[in-house]
Structure formats: C-alpha cells, structure tokens
C-alpha cells in the first residue's frame, strides 16, 4: 500500500502539486489523469523521489520513502516512461538486466529472470535477447521497457504516459498485456496519462488532477455518476457518459440467470459491446457464454440500459 500524505511541490512561487493525499491499495491499478501541466507527472516522480517533495511524505507499506538513499529506493520500484528510454547501446537482455545487476544478483539468476520475462512478454529469447532496441518495433520496445522495470520483482510499478507513443492498435494490445501482467505478478501499478479512455480501460481507481490539485479520487464509475467537479465531467465527457458507464461492466457481471434465445456474446465483453451487437442484429436479448461455449446466463436490452443510468 502506498500512502501519499499532503504531498506538495513548489518551484519558487509556483505550486506544481498542492497538498495531494491518496491511499493507493496494494495489487491494483491506479490511474492519475490530467491535462498537461496538471502536476500528475510531478506527483508520480515524487513517489520514487526523482523529484523531492517540498512538503508532505510518501510511505510504502508503512516505511517512509526518505528512510533510505533515493537510488536504493528506486531499485525497489519499477519505472516506465513514455518513449521507453531503453539504452540504445545495450542489448534487450542487458537492458532488462539493468536493475538486477545494480542489485548484484548472480549471473545465473539474472539469466533465468531475463529469459522468464522475455517469454512473459512474448519476445522469443533466442531471437530477441541479443537484439538492440533499434531493431525492435515500437510495441516491442515498450514491452522491453516494462520488462526492464519488472526485472527485479518490484512490488510497485510507476508508469509515466507509457503508451503515449504507440499507435491505437498496438496501444490496445499493450493495455490487455498490462492487465494480464498485473494479474500475474500482483504488482501495485500507478499510471499517469492524459487519456481518459486509457484510464477507464485500465483503472481500478482514477485520480483526476488539475492545476496541481486532486479533484477526485474514485473508481471509474463514480467519476461518471458522482463527478466531484465540473472539470471531472468535462474530462470524462458528458455526451457519451452512459456508454462509458456501460463499458465498465462485463457481460458476466450483469448476466441474469436462465437461458434465452438470441446471439451468444462472450462473458468478458463489456455491456457497451453487447448492446452494440444487439442493435446490429436487431435482437432483444443475448446468451452470455464462457470461452468454451457454456451458457452463463442471459442479457436483455432493458437490463443493459438499466446499467447505463446513474444509481
């Protein structure tokens, strides 16, 4: 658990981050959203002390981040930035091995960890371990960047606009991978972005920042149903908020018991996708099925629409 307590950063007379407090639960994805200049990156960089706070403090699992030298703290926290920041003069394997080497792991331990991560990130070791970053695609470079950040098995991963440089298709794939990785390693992830869609796709809870202040810190649905500030509504978008709300619930979560006629939809599909499918087919209800095709219940248009209204 990360406890951010009244964190403030001032440069001269300008306050970049203004008394931000937040409790970041373990084993979850927290997304900090804001326009450029909102102080979201500075907030993130104060967690691993790339920026030293003017006031306030951060504790990770109860221990103050200032209780050890900054570089030692950073070796325990994964860090991913936009444009990956891979070392161009080192191979993929050497890049991934950076922090384990700093920590003085044995060569065999480093070797097996690098191989494990390459496999997790679907980069065939024989082909990619000794490749240089410039030989990889943008998506692959980003995956190596994340693998490098996870190499020393950190419990916390900080990500600063990690997918900003990717095209939409590669980005969507990267989002699915990140969710898988989070589930697999149980890492506590704090991610900064200006993209509200990205926040809704990834976040367990979203923090909205503007001009250094944190306006709201809630699960994504609450941003839509109970916006704390007009700015939050502007960020989430008023016109399609009902659709956004539908996209936050999966078919499995909303499924009604019993079977019904109609097209079958995947349990993992969002209500937004199910509704779209029903509109397209001109059907009133759908059967929710597992990956192997077993029915798990059904959904009606009416039931779906109920989920699109604030409760």
């Amino acid at each position, binding site marked *: 658990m990360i406890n951010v307590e009244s964190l403030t950063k001032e440069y001269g007379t300008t306050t970049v981050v203004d008394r931000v407090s937040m409790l970041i639960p373990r084993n979850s994805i927290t997304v900090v959203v804001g326009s450029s200049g909102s102080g979201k990156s500075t907030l993130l960089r104060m967690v691993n002390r790339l920026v030293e706070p003017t006031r306030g403090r951060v504790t990770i699992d109860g221990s103050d981040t200032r209780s050890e030298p900054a570089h030692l703290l950073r*070796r325990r926290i994964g860090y991913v930035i*936009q*444009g*990956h920041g*891979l070392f*161009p003069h080192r191979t993929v394997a050497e890049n991934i091995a950076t922090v384990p080497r700093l920590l003085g792991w044995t060569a065999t331990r480093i070797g097996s960890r690098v191989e494990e991560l390459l496999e997790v990130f679907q980069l065939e070791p024989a082909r990619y371990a000794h490749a240089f970053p410039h030989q990889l695609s943008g998506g692959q470079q980003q995956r190596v960047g994340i693998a490098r950040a996870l190499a020393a098995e950190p419990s916390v991963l900080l990500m600063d606009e990690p997918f900003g440089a990717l095209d939409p298709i590669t980005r969507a794939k990267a989002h699915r991978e990140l969710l898988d990785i989070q589930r697999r390693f149980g890492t506590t992830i704090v991610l900064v972005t200006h993209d509200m869609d990205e926040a809704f796709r990834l976040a367990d809870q979203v923090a909205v920042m503007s001009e250094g202040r944190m306006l709201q810190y809630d699960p994504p649905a609450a941003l839509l149903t109970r916006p704390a500030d007009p700015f939050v509504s502007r960020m989430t978008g008023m016109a399609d908020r009902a659709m956004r709300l539908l996209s936050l619930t999966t078919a499995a979560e909303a499924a009604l018991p019993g079977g019904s006629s109609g097209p079958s939809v995947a349990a993992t599909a969002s209500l937004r996708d199910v509704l779209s499918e029903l509109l397209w087919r001109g059907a009133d209800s759908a059967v929710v099925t597992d990956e192997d095709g077993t029915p798990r219940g059904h959904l009606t248009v009416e039931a779906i629409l109920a989920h699109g209204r604030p409760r």
Partner: protein
Amino acid sequence: MKRGIGHPAATLAGDIPVPRGHRVDRLGALLAVVGIAAFVFLPLVVFKSNRLVPGDPRGWLEALPRWAALGSAATLALVAIVALRASSAALRLGAALLGLVIVALAVAAAANALTPPGNRIVRVAPGSGFWVLLVALGLLMTDAVTRLRPGPGLRVLFLALLIALVGFALSRGVFDNLSVMREYAVNADRFAREFRQHLWLALGSLAAAVVVGLPIGIVCHRSARLRAAMLGTLNVIETIPSLALFGILMAPLGALAAAVPLAAALGIQGIGTAPAIIALFLYALLPIVANTAAGLRRVSPAIVEAARGMGMTSWQVLVSVELVLALPVILTGIRIVLVQNIGLATIAALIGGGGLGTFVFQGIGQTAIDLVLLGAIPTVALAFTAAVVLDAIVEITERARR
C-alpha cells in the same frame, strides 16, 4: 530513355541510364586535363648543382631514359582514360594507385639518372609537374575510395598497406637520390629525435586537454551559465594567432621559472617544450570541452531519466550511460584536436620546442626548400594518418550506438 517524374532520387543519384561509352566523369575529366597539362608542360624534377642554388627544370623526356618516359606516358594515358570514363570505382582506385606508383618511380628514376655516380653535392628535387600529378592522382584516389564507401576497418587496412608500401620503398633506398632523402641522410639521427618530440608535443598536449577538458565539458553540460562563459573564453583563446600565443606565454613562464626553482627544475621555462605544450593544450581545450558538452546534450533525456529512475547513482548514469553514448562526439573532438595539434606543433620550433618544425624553419632560413620538405612531408603524413585512424574509430563507436 524515359525519365520517371515521380522518382527524383533517380536523377539525384546520377544513375540515369545513358548509353555506355558516352558517359564522361566530370571530376575525372578535370583531373585528366590537369594531369596531362602537368605531364606535358611542367618539369618532372628540378636539377640543382648544389642544395642552395635555384634549379634547372627538367621535363619527363629530358630527365628519364626514352623508354621509361614513353612507358610511363603510355601508362598515365591509360590512367587518364579510366578517369575520364565513368568506370567502376574499384577500377578507378586501381588506376589511381598505378598512376601514383608510376609517378613516384619516375621521380626516383629521374633522380638516379641525373645524379652522377658518387656525387653527393648535386640535388634532384621533385618538380612542379610531379606535385601537380601527385595531387591530381591523390584526388582521383580519394574520390574512388569515397565512392566505394569502405567500412572503417577496410579504410585503416588500406592506409596500413599504403604506409607499408611507402616504408618498403624507403627502406630499399628507392628514393635515396632524391633531394629530400639526401637531407634526411645528413640529418638522420636528428630526424628521429625531432619526430619523437613532435609526437610528444601533439599527444602530450592532447592528453592534458582530455584530462582537463572532459570534466569541464561535463560541468558545462550541467550548467548553462558556466557553458556560455567557458566556451566564450575558449573561443577567444582559439582566435589568438599561434605565434602570438607562444609569445604571450614566454613572459609569465619565464618569470615563473625565475621565481620558483622547482618549476625551473621541472623544465618550465619561457622557451622550450613547456610553453609549446601549454599553448597547444590551450588550443585543444575548446574542441574537447565543446564536443563533450555537445555529446552529452545529444543523449536523449528519456534515457537519462530512465537510468535515474531505475536507481543508478549519478556517477553510474554519467559513466555507464551519458559518457558512453556521447563517446562518438567526444572522439570527434579528439580527432579535431589531434590533427590540429600535429599541424600546430610545427610552430613550436620557433620558441625552441623542437619537433619537425625545426627542419621547416631551418630550411626557410637557409632557403633550402628540400629541408623544408623534410619537416613538412612527415607532418602532413602524420596528420593524414591520425585523421583516417580516428575517423574509423569514431565510425565504429557510432555504429554501436544507434
């Protein structure tokens, strides 16, 4: 032949298809005309009855036996034809090398033919025709090498072969009757000493400039204010004429030697090696500092940020990321300094610093142009070698850091 409007690259690359046999290489044509003119109108060698009198020019036919003159004329005509036609770069390189060998052998043969046996007084110096042909063929060779685009390793190998070839010819005494080698024979042991001194001046000042300039460059990268002040100062130093800088240093160093006996004991004096090395060091500082700062600035901030974010200490970031990535630019600075210092070290002779400049200025004093060449030719060869080798190193380090 239809020219594709949509493919401007095709017209730029110069590979517009034109029927074979009508293609004339423009640079080759110019060099061929210059070379033929030099062959016909300019003297191959200058014959002097002793080392100081003005010489008597001799053309190819007067200086060489008839068969040798006609043979070399025919070979050089062949080289000219290859240069004229847009033939392959490898063929052009071969032709240029053949031409250089022929011209070198011709001037050596002329010296042998014109020198009466056992006579050590007469001098046969290379004439203007020789020098013009040498430059024309040298340009032809450089152009061919540029077009072949060889890798750094191959370039150094080529240079080594060239040095080995010249070294072999010199060791076999091929050029012994030529005026420059006559001067060498008289000054052989002094030559070795001054050559070593020249290297010491150039490399010693370079080493000092790297040791001092690298940290200054790093600090300049960190502080914009200091960068402006430092580079401004070094720019001013760079504009001081070399002779003036040597002169400026004489007074304070002389005073230092007089006031501090230890300094004098260490060899620091108003004249000699100390002011020469200090002046060369000052000239070397700007390229080293400027290139170190520029090289560090070129390193992507994202990479430095990532390195810091992963828990490298400032020292680790500097040494294993920033400096490693800046290395090609820093090495380019070292290359500039080394070539510049090898040339400037010649001036050191004027303040008693020694080096190959000793022969140059002695030669000027005695109006003995052969002695000037004894100092100048090795200086040029050294600078050229340094440039080729360091260019290769820069390219190799650049390749590893895309």
